[in-house]
């Protein structure tokens, strides 16, 4: 065997090996209309302690002649935005965990009203139970909220007093006290930034952040670093976090004095999470059944308690545990930017903020 034959053989081998990697473009999503609904979601819906996902699957399957398959795309909805942009297959029928930023990003990237179908709300008996304040304002009606969180401040009452207003945070009493998150990557970080934009306006928020920076605010990457890392090890007296903080503190026996919840300006920033049906879904009917089920009373209570978020439906339609009621706090007034306010502005706001902050 001379070199040429040899290389030829190896080449042929390589080609055969590579051929195993060829696939044919399929038609729709998932495995077709077989009664199995593939729902994509984020990790904590299925993988963390006491997640809501497995409960929902079991309870829904007991009531309906259908099956649910959870799937967790590792980059969340962004992964499907990328798939759609590259015309690659999307392996799910529905997505649970869409927030209004996601809708804005989808439309910026793919064009108006893409990726998710417009929902026929009439098909859902329970849709009118949803609280009005959670309306995301999507002109294409693609998602319905199923729960919401409120961003607030968690503080240590032995170290600082409750901050009454956002302006207080720039006072000497709160020097080197606040931990926040990078609005580029983190949901609570972005929510807090938007809250300051709501309070100080597009033209004033950077000045406010300048004052915060002078007062020693620390912006870490994500919620885990700032909360599980820095705050829990006593680095600082205050952290941007969720208003359900005490539910965990109670469950894990942490000192309540370090888990006080503050709503400066009497507000909290609302972060409703929504569910929608992906374009090209094959089991649309099952998806509607599932969404209606999610909005019914028992699942609403289970989702709220397991995800440690607030229900999306009005109080009359849900019965929460008394411990949950006691430790999960709701602000008297909520702040939230809707779709129209964010569209065309969000990217620029975050970018200007981040560039201002990186002070080399």
């Amino acid at each position: 065997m001379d070199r040429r034959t040899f290389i030829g053989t190896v080449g042929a081998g390589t080609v055969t090996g590579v051929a195993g990697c060829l696939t044919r473009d399929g038609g729709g999503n998932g495995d077709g209309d077989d009664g199995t609904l593939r729902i994509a979601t984020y990790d904590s819906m299925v993988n963390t302690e006491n997640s809501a996902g497995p409960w929902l699957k079991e309870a829904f399957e007991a009531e309906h002649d259908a099956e649910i398959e959870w799937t967790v795309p590792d980059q969340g909805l962004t992964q499907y935005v990328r798939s759609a942009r590259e015309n690659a297959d999307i392996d799910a029928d529905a997505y649970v965990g869409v927030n209004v930023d996601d809708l804005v990003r989808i439309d910026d990237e793919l064009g108006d009203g893409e990726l998710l179908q417009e929902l026929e709300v009439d098909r859902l008996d329970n849709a009118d139970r949803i609280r009005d304040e959670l309306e995301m304002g999507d002109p294409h009606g693609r998602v319905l909220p199923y729960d919401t969180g409120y961003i607030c401040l968690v503080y240590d009452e032995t170290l600082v007093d409750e901050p009454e207003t956002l302006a207080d945070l720039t006072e000497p009493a709160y020097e080197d006290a606040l931990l926040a998150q990078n609005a580029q990557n983190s949901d609570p970080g972005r929510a807090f930034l938007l809250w300051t934009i709501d309070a100080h306006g597009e033209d004033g928020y950077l000045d406010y952040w300048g004052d915060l920076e002078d007062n020693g605010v620390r912006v870490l990457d994500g919620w885990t670093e700032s909360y599980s890392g820095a705050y829990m090890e006593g680095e600082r007296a205050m952290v941007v976090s969720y208003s359900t903080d005490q539910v965990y503190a109670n469950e894990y026996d942490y000192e309540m004095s370090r888990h006080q919840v503050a709503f400066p300006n009497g507000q909290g920033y609302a972060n409703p999470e929504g569910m929608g049906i992906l374009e090209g879904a094959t089991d649309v009917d099952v998806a509607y059944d599932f969404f209606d089920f999610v909005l019914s009373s028992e699942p609403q209570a289970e989702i709220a308690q397991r995800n440690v978020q607030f229900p999306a439906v009005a109080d009359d339609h849900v019965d929460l545990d008394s411990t949950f009621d006691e430790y999960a706090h709701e602000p008297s007034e909520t702040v939230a930017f809707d779709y129209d306010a964010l569209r065309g502005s969000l990217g620029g706001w975050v970018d200007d903020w981040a560039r201002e902050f990186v002070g080399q």
Partner: protein
Amino acid sequence: MPASDRRGLRNAVVTLRSRLERHALSLAALATAAVLAIMLYLPVGVVFVEAVLEAGRPTLAHFRSVLTDPFYVGALADVFAEPLAVGSHLEGVAGWLGAVSVSATVVRPIPGLELPVPWLALETPGVRLGLFGFTAYQAALSTLASVALGLPAAYVLATYEFRGRRTIRSLTILPFVLPGIMVAVGFYAMFGRGGTLNGLLGLVGLGPYPFIEGNPLAIVIVAHAFYNAPLVARVTVAAWESVDRRAVETARSLGASPRRAFRDVVVPQLFPAVLTGALLTFIFTFMTFPIVLALGGLQLATVEVWIYDRVRQLAYGEAATLAVLETLLSLGLTYAYLRYESAQSGLARSAGTPARRPLVPDLRTALSPRRLAIVAYGLVVLVVFVGPMASLIVGSVTDGSGLTLRHYAFLLERQLEGASYQTLPWIAIRNSLLFGVATLAVAVPMGVVISVVTARAGRAGAIVDALAMLPLAVSGVVFGIGLLRGLVFGIPLPGGWRFQVTGAVAIVAAHAVAAYPFVTRNVSPLLANLDPAMVESARALGASRYRALRDVELPLVASGIVAGAAFAFAISIGEFSSTVILAGGGDTYTMPVAVERYLGRRSGPAIAMGTVLLFVTAASFVVVDRVGGRFER
């Protein structure tokens, strides 16, 4: 079967074998090239090409906008904007020099402690470093710190004998495999205001000190050293153990003092290894991502942080441009180093058994200044390396009420009762180990082949060798997105076909691609130092190139191969970003992926999984090194 046929068959087998043997090297080189083409050049190319495209047309606009933006390149922006205005740039430099002043002053280097140290303050008017400048600055400091912390470890491990030396040598790799988020949590648990260190200092009435907040840049640098000092130590120990004892003895018998023999014989042989460690550290910390923002905050953002943000916003043009610039910088540095390395080829070395002195022969020696310095260094190691990991382990068995096993109970329950769509601990452990071994098996031949091909090829070899470092020099974020777009989504082909690569094989290949540069960098310097006459004599005596490699060269560089193999295993165990992308929804996730997935609003389960990762890795490294040790002798 008639005897003649059997003989014919045997002849055929023998001929085939000799042919295979003759071509073994080209075969391996070809396979290596194929793996690299699919798992590296294709995905990276898919993204890099965006740097020079705007709406499908070639353009340099992205480069122009990045290079003339002071936010990215600081004071150099003017130079890039008007490269020909040399006069005004020189004036700018002269003006800056004129404003520099030096004055004597007193500083307090330890936060919270009144310890005045006289210092020469250098007053310079601020130069805007820009994102690239700052990134390079922190990488340079991190490299210094890693070398400073890694070399003493190499010295102790290579020259002293003590109980547990081999185990400690195996465990040096541990920090290297920890997911970034675990390191961050571990550092807060160790150095935070309420952390272990302040707890210990509190016992003797000191503190609490704001170790992290006092100087965030310093803690980021220490965290980088946590990752990379072990790397420096391992690379150096491998070289130290292959120092030719006879050369040292010859020097001594010719009247050189031990110090002189060390300086003139040992140091020159170690220097390339130390520089290799430093180079790898610089490249790694230049592309650092999770650690800076987790410990230092957004003020200390690096280029990679911005690449991540651009990729998230699907602004591939700008992301790719930043990544290309990052890669060019790293590769340029690698090339400069390799030119230096190739100028260093020296005498043949043999892997004799290194002579080690006992660390604590008797009490008097134990109190000698050198032994006391080693004890002091041991304390530093306890604080910087053992501390964060031990604090993590403690974190995995505590909650608000004290000791608890609930986090491990979660892992056990998930394993026993978890559904198939959930992440199960045992599958993660099994996959990590399988992928680790497979990566080792693929990356070692790849790395050795590249070393052999480039070892004596002069300038061209240095270029190929520098390019072979590409996996380390490419932004992890960009590589990940390239894998997603190039291999997971697939490349559309005519006729409705798509070329897609995912699953276990793809993960192993991606790990091998990330790991082989470590094999190459460990093997190449040793290979280049071998006396070419040895291979030539073997060839003259009729050995094929492969035989000469297998029977003559490889045994002489075994310590480098084993060190490289250990790194390959470690890279595979610790790899996160491409694994998670290639694993998709299937059951090919690994331990670091499981850690990330268990991370919710309660960090306990994730920390417990991180602890499992630590113990499994520790055990496997003891095994890898024991098995590897047999080949070294």
